[in-house]
């Protein structure tokens, strides 16, 4: 079977498992069903055949008793459903793990992805350096140019990089990912701040935000290169 088919079956196992667990988990104990029924009858005026005086009093089942009675009714199907969820989930995890380990040798996509992450960060750095140089001219007219460049950077480079974070996480491992992506996110926020400062025509803030963003993204690239 292909990895896609395996993935589909793993997901299906989880869906069936949740369905079985939730269906049998929803089953009411006889006493609770009776209490719910009486409550519904009391609320409903159309239940004319049972007048209030004919209703039995609601017998509430203590919480722990309720758990025990439910367990005696639904233990087997519920446990089976739980096994399906766990089986499907662990299988899905394994498939994801295999996919990651297989890709560098079998597919060129993943190594390309790693390169792309490097390239994306490098491109961000290049653009930010250009903006930094522009702002060094101390010409407020450049704010419009910078704002447009930041918008282009966001759409063309930052958004795709953010979208690729799951692959990056698998590639780097969670701890290293947190370092790289944390540093990148700090830079991204400063880029957003520079954009806001451009709109507010605040030259000094635009300049300092670009500088801080540049430093954060450079740090992210350095961390990524160390992987």
């Amino acid at each position: 079977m292909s990895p896609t088919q395996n993935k589909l079956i793993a997901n299906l196992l989880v869906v069936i498992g949740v369905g079985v667990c939730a269906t049998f988990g929803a089953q009411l104990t006889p006493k609770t069903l009776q209490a719910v029924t009486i409550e519904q009858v009391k609320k409903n005026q159309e239940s004319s055949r049972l007048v209030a005086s004919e209703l039995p009093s609601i017998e509430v089942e203590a919480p722990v008793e309720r758990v025990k009675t439910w367990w005696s009714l639904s233990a087997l199907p519920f446990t089976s459903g739980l096994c399906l969820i766990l089986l499907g989930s662990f299988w899905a995890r394994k498939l994801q793990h295999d996919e990651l380990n297989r890709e560098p040798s079998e597919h060129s996509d993943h190594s390309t992805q790693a390169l792309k992450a490097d390239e994306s960060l490098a491109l961000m750095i290049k653009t930010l350096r250009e903006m930094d140089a522009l702002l060094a001219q101390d010409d407020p007219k450049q704010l419009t140019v910078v704002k447009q460049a930041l918008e282009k950077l966001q759409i063309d480079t930052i958004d795709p990089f953010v979208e690729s974070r799951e692959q990056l996480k698998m590639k780097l491992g969670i701890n290293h990912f947190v370092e790289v992506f944390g540093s990148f996110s700090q830079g991204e926020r400063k880029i957003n701040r520079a954009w806001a400062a451009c709109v507010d025509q605040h030259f000094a803030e635009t300049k300092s935000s670009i500088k801080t963003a540049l430093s954060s993204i450079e740090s992210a690239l350095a961390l990524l290169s160390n992987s």
Partner: protein
Amino acid sequence: MNDLPSSQNQATPKPYRELTPIAVILGILIGSLMNAAFVYIALKLGFSLGGSTVAAIIGFGVLKLAVDQSSIIENNINQTIASGVNNASAGVVFTLPALFLMGADFSPTSAILSAIAGTFLGIVIIIPLRKQMIEFERLRFPSGIAVASLLKSPGAGAKQAKLLGLGFVIATLFHVASELSGISDFNLGGLLSIPAYFPIVLGISFASIGAGMLAGGGGLPFVAGGILAWWIISPLVTSLGWLPSAESLGLDLGTQAGKVLELQGQALYKAMLRPLGIGTLIGGAMAGVVASLPALKGALKSLSNAAQTSSGDSPDELDAKALGIAAVSAFLLLFAAAVIASSKMSLAACALIAVVGFVWLILAGLVVAQATGVTDISPLSGMSLIGVTLMYFLSGGDSVVAIILGVAVCVGIGQCADMMSDLKAGHMIGASPRSQQLAQLGFSWVGVPVAVGVLYLLWTPDGGGFGPGATSGLSAPQGDALQGILLGLASGDAPLDKYIVGAVIGLSLGVFPISGLGVLVGLAMYLPFSVTLTYAVGSVIAIGLEKSKGRAWMGSHIVPFAAGLIIGEALTSITAVLIRLATGAS
């Protein structure tokens, strides 16, 4: 006046405006006004409203008039404070009225202390999760995106402003039509004579569609959970005969089949799916905590580094030391509230109840923040209900202590979701998280005395204040419901089996490699299907458009349009409620 470059402006440039006195004062004023109004609305209608968009719009006007160089980020601070102050009202008004209705003898000081403790705790516990939820997981927080789009609108360009306006107009038109006609949903299943246990009902809510559009494919697990609950489990449970039968309900299946199905549907939702959903939410959140531990460790490390930073630069976040001090102070407040509220409990018991309340707040805050992050829908009432139940059992059946500490839980988890949504908006416009966190931590508590004060102002014990049948028309439905639940608990009625079973399902889903899956599936069980299905429409539209137009197009077209839908419905809802209250219409 612009800030000129240094060569042209020899004086030191004015600092970029962010956490300014006027932003703080304006935020407190707007937040307090909305808080008082929304307490009244919640007592009358049973729901409260978010006020971030209103605050941002008023902020634009007032800040521009008052300051000649106001900034987008300054308005973000105003909006952060206003929504924090306003948000405290929901936590108070959903819980505290139950004590008034029960005629309980309680100290208002304990209620205020508890709610203030909840405000601080909610903010403090969610701050370390900012990096995880906003930077690493990139949760959408649709309302946060909508507010950011609004704040960015002065510089976003004519095309995006038009799209935002188009979304606003569409949502407004449909919401006005829905208000005028009294039709809040479209029952396609009913039209096609499909039985009610297989519901196909769409809510007329363009805000839900907008939230689904912003979530796109990320919202699919939530949609799948809804389909599983309502299109698979519901027909199965019905066909297995696990619901009250027509005979036991005193109805004739031949002539009253519709009524039978309606009552069975109510039983299915209230006694089965909803409590099961709450349990799944809790289990999902527990699994989320375990899965997030490495990232949380990283976040705490960075907070700790912020505390030790020796550079002159302002750190990004409130440091771990400040958060620790705030958390300990808030915990002591909570403990004091428990001691004042209870005349019978020992100090050790009060400490235990405060600790459990604190721990529950962390878990529930995580659930609410995660759910809001993906769907924009907050299971606040369910989480608060469990909080009150826990407090009730721990206090040995003392309703006063249960509700007083329940106020803290309810206010706190509301602050968690609000803080995170504001931080998302802040990230998108480049605000300093530290300034936002300081603003919310420093001033949200103001909403507590405002909300409690309004309750006391409105309350008269002779039946004219609020409560079922009150002559004022303020029926306080949430408080009344909570009172009913406490009475049920007093008789031993608690669906513990459903909570435990749900928690096991939620925990087991934590193994699957999709973050937050348990919370999303639980939320889908917890909500009526019309909400989930409407959201699904938005998700499916977004997925289709992304395939055909690409991601960049989605960012430039769908984000402002969907934000317009959310803002349009939010503002129209508030206006409609105010008109109804002013004209006395029901």
